[in-house]
């Protein structure tokens, strides 16, 4: 099925509030680091894929025009892939299909966002249709709170146990972020502080929520024959999956969430994965809210439905557990949205090539990267491995 595709090099900005740089300068920081990491230079690139959140986020429309120089696309073909929150993952998928189709050998994928420059929740409210849903949804926290409450109710999860499990997820991500030099939020907080933090949209509390970040990520995708000429070991793409459902939040079951279930199945099938918890060594799950991380474990088959809280409390998804999740600190600590999905891919590739530094999961060979988007509609997966 198509040509084999590898990732050869990743680059990230130091994520956070980056008023020290303009938008193009921020983007270039990640692009340059990807070139440095890969040993490639801009001349080696055949094509570029890019994407961000909508124009309303920074107030610049079709920003591939303004950022053309920063992403080094001058004189080259571009694709501009945008799928809301899952944009970064969809950008990675586009680069993958471009190489797999045989029309390019080296594709630079770049995702970015400068969220301190705009109003992210006001922007996200405009994702909802103006006739019905826009008047009611309170940005992303509003939508995901509704989804979390459905999940809690379906599985009859006791309030205290839920709060405990969510707090464990939050603590784990915030602690792990200290081992990731690029992570945005570096906060030493206690389990009690997390549990008692103020409610944003019930059941979501202050420390259950991701930040707004400025940041960019760049990843170089390569054909098999090019990758095998490189000195450094690549990460191989083992599987990709993507699904979406309706724009009306109430149309689909978001607990047994078919877009997440089917996207994972599509990728597992290609990668030959039967038992994800056993076979995957690490997962970078898109977790802007702690509850969503738990809900997604179930949809991805990391555990049975209704089991996620118990296993999270047992440490199954912590470093040293069966399947460490988000050792980078995840979206919960770093969220430049257009880059966020691509950061998951970059982190997964770093893990299986042994480049994750202080947050390396020892011996990781197979990793899952995930992103979601839309009005809680889209799920995208990419699985990477150290072996072809």
């Amino acid at each position, binding site marked *: 099925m198509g040509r084999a595709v590898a990732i050869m090099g990743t680059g990230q900005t130091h994520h956070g509030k980056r008023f020290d*740089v303009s938008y193009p300068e921020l983007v270039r920081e990640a692009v340059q680091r990807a070139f440095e990491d890969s040993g490639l230079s801009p001349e080696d690139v055949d094509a570029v894929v890019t994407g961000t959140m909508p124009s309303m986020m920074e107030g610049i429309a079709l920003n591939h025009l303004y950022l053309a120089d920063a992403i080094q696309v001058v004189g080259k073909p571009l694709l501009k892939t945008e799928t809301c929150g899952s944009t970064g993952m969809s950008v990675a998928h586009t680069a993958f299909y471009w190489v797999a189709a045989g029309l390019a050998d080296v594709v630079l994928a770049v995702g970015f966002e400068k969220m301190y420059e705009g109003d992210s929740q006001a922007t996200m409210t405009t994702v909802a249709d*103006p006739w019905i849903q826009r008047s009611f949804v309170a940005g992303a926290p509003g939508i995901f709170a509704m989804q979390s409450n459905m999940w809690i109710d379906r599985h009859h999860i006791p309030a205290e146990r839920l709060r405990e499990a969510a707090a464990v997820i939050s603590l784990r991500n915030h602690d792990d972020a200290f081992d990731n030099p690029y992570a945005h939020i570096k906060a030493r907080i206690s389990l009690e502080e997390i549990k008692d933090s103020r409610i944003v949209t019930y059941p979501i509390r202050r420390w259950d929520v991701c930040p707004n970040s400025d940041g960019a990520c760049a990843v170089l995708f390569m054909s098999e024959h090019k990758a095998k000429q490189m000195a450094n070991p690549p990460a191989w793409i083992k599987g990709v999956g993507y699904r979406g459902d309706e724009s009306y939040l109430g149309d689909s079951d978001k607990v047994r969430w078919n877009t997440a279930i089917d996207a994972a199945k599509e990728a597992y099938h290609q990668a030959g994965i039967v038992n994800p918890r056993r076979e995957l060594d690490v997962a970078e799950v898109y977790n802007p809210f702690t509850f969503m991380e738990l809900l997604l474990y179930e949809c991805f088959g990391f555990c049975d439905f209704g089991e996620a809280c118990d296993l999270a409390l047992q440490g199954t998804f912590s470093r040293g557990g069966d399947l460490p999740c988000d050792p980078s600190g995840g979206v919960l600590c770093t969220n430049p949205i257009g880059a966020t999905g691509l950061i998951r891919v970059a982190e997964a590739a770093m893990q299986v090539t042994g480049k994750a530094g202080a947050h390396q999961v020892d011996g990781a060979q197979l990793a899952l990267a995930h992103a979601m988007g839309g009005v809680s509609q889209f799920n995208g997966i990419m699985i990477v491995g150290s072996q072809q």
Partner: protein
Amino acid sequence: MTKEYRTLHTTVNLPYELAFGATLTRFFDGLSAEKILGTRCPKCSRVLVPARSFCPRCFIDLDDWVEVGQTGTVETWSLVSYEYIGMAKTPPYITGLIRLDGADVSFTHLIGGIDMSSIDQVQSRLAIGTRVKAVWATEKPGSIFDIEYFVPI
């Protein structure tokens, strides 16, 4: 035909706070001091105005700052007379590309100080190749309009 169905009138109006970054901050500080600053690329030797932090072609850092001339040559221009919502300037105005003396790229700005009541009036003072010079605003807060416009010499 009468409308059968209703429409929703809506606007999207969002606030922004945008980072200049170090290089554009210095460029606009330069305008406040009535200086037009560029950066020279050590590889291709081009002087780029406005100043850039990196060369778009060579993709290397730039920090060789140069002040370019406040006079230049018009490369092309347009008398703008139509209007649209959210327009930055009220027409008529003349927008132009100006190759400032000492720069290797053209600077986009307004051309003013001439009669814009008709295209004939404008063409009596302005053509491709016309020499122009910067006219500074009285108030210079560090924006692109610290230069009010360029006037034909």
